[in-house]
């Protein structure tokens, strides 16, 4: 599960991480009020208006059809009103959202932290995540802050540092010192950085995050260390023990069909293609998407109906797939192991009859226990459903259907 920047910052603050402060607004009027409050607190007219969407690249991204950036500096209240008016309720297109973009329902009105002072501000990058290769958490950091980390890793890999955390003892003080030294810090900023890293790592482990990315981490002109941004992913498997975090879920950020599928306990991911698919098992589902592509189509979705594939689930899954107007055909691919294929076939026939008028051709591939009986059942149902047993036959059927 992903959360917004303003939510991530709230969590960070709870764990003692210093952040760029801000106030959330859902209208230009609220944004102006927020800016006034920030002026009282920090004595500056300047604020940053930051679009709150679950995607990166907001600073470079633009509101669809305009030149308005997704993150912009406002130097007075008129500009606060104008910029938030330009952003709120509109579609922000960034490198990560794709051409469709995402609607911005909230902005974070944030303090300006790049004020002049005794030294020049400096941006770093820091993230905490699981290193799957070692099975340990790792802190990744670089002096090259504010940039795309994949680009830095590609162009100047020697500038990326990694600090692995031994799961049996956790993060140690020498490691936080090493990080602060490698970032070239001294004095007050050095001390603040070691505390920053410790707090950041505590936040990461305590909320069962799968990723914490702070880009940039800022050394201010008065040598404070703070998180200017916060991108956080939470381990879905651990949400059961963090109801307060689960409550942060923003359904507006998700595809409504995916949300509905989730309510039925179906694992569905919407894609842009023209052939829907329904499969038992995640690996076979991905493989079925690949088959669709190799047969000349494009997968319209990922859908794992799970081990049982009962008539009820098949029907729900079919209804979910048919909500997508791009779907020109459906491939149902079930490997019946412990679940018998003839039961699944009966489920498909029942679902078909219950839904009634299905406008697209359906190909059902059932393999495993009682596959022959299942094929007979489908073939004799009188429905416009093609049956197959071998995966190759199903692939050929898909490409034939797409040709017609």
């Amino acid at each position, binding site marked *: 599960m992903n959360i917004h920047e303003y939510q991530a910052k709230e969590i960070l603050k709870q764990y003692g991480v210093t952040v760029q402060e801000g106030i959330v607004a859902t209208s230009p009027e609220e944004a102006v009020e927020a800016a006034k409050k920030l002026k009282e607190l920090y004595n500056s007219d300047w604020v940053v208006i930051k679009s709150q969407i679950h995607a990166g690249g907001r600073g470079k991204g633009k509101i669809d059809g305009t030149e308005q950036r997704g993150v912009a500096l406002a130097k007075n209240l008129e500009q606060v009103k104008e910029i938030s008016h330009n952003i709120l309720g509109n579609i922000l297109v960034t490198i*990560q959202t794709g051409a469709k973009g995402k609607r911005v329902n909230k902005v974070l009105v944030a303090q300006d932290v790049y004020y002049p002072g005794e030294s020049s501000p400096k941006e770093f990058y820091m993230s905490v995540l*699981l290193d*799957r*290769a070692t*099975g*340990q*958490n790792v802190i990744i950091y670089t002096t090259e802050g504010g940039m795309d980390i*994949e680009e830095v890793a590609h162009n100047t890999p020697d500038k990326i540092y990694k600090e692995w955390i*031994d*799961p*049996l003892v956790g993060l140690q003080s020498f490691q936080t010192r090493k990080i602060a030294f490698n970032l070239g810090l001294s004095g007050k900023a050095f001390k603040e950085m070691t505390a920053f890293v410790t707090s950041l790592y505590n936040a990461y*482990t305590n909320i*069962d995050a*799968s990723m914490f990315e702070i880009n940039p981490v800022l050394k201010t002109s008065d040598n404070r260390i703070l998180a200017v941004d916060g991108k956080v992913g939470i*381990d*879905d*498997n*651990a949400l*059961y*023990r963090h109801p307060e975090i689960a409550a942060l879920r923003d359904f507006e950020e998700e595809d409504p069909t995916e949300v509905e599928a989730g309510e039925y306990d179906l*694992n569905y*991911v919407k*894609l842009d*293609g023209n052939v829907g698919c329904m*499969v*038992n*098992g*995640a*690996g*076979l*589902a*991905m*493989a*079925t*998407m*690949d*088959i*669709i*592509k*190799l047969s000349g189509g*494009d*997968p319209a979705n*990922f859908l*794992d109906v799970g081990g049982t594939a009962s008539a009820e689930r098949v029907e729900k899954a079919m209804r979910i797939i048919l909500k997508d107007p791009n779907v020109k055909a459906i491939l149902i691919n079930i*490997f*019946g*192991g*412990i679940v018998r294929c003839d039961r699944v076939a009966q489920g498909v026939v029942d679902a078909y009859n219950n839904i009634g008028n299905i406008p697209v051709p359906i190909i059902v591939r059932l*393999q*495993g*226990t009682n596959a022959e009986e299942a094929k007979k059942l489908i073939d004799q149902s009188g429905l416009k459903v093609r049956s197959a047993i*071998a*995966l*190759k036959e*199903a*692939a050929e059927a898909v490409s034939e259907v797409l040709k017609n």
Partner: protein
Amino acid sequence: MSVLVNKNSKIVVQGFTGNEGTFHARQMIEYGTNVVGGITPGKGGQTHLGCPVFNTVSDAVKNTGADVSIIFVPPAFAADAIMEAADAGIKVIVCITEGIPVKDMIGAKAYIKKRNCVLVGPNCPGVITPDEAKVGIMPGFVFKKGRIGIVSKSGTLTYEAADQIVKAGLGISTAIGIGGDPIIGTSTKDAVEMLMNDPETDAIVMIGEIGGNYEAEAAKWISKNGNQKKVVAFIAGQTAPPGRRMGHAGAIIGGSDDTAAAKKKILSQNGIFVVDSPADIGIKMKEVLSLASN
């Protein structure tokens, strides 16, 4: 010989009396697997499916000499169950449970590292050595005995591969479902290494998917060790979009090395026979083996 489990394995079931545990333990027993007991805390002393129930794994080991455990415990308690098995001296721990928090698995993996055991899974279909032992949830009838080893991150895709191998006139020595989570006990390379060293295995099917570096690691190990046996591979998720989790918790493209295309390239470069379509796994294996015998 075979790997991990065979007819001499003494198997206990953790989460024995629960719904999942009962259903699959019964199937394992019907298959002929040597299930010697089970564990459900608080139900020690009872009999279930004709086998003794123990309160702790350590009691079970003392009383039955068990060396293999299969875990059907719910996700919140599964990491604890893995560590309990390791502490009790179980040699092969197969964890079926899906949905264990990553943080719990980081701890469990570090814990068992210092003990003399192998963990398979979690979030996996288990391990089967046909006609000897089924320690998992796979449909046993699909796996006919033979000399092809299978290593896979996925359940139903493993059954698919096994079925194709059998239809191609071949059979399976041992199939190892390593699981689709970000942290698993036995990596692709670990499983491939076991099968490479198994005298009853002639060739290997390796099924991977997007996410992580396990397939690349295995490929490099295979070529470094002289490509001793033919390996046919399929990588699922060629059409998966970046940043979206495809069912399995570990099946997500985070960076460029996670893609199916990148993995397929590394596999091919290391002498592995990569098929584009999952429908071609059986045919390809037959072709590769007949080329080798000519």
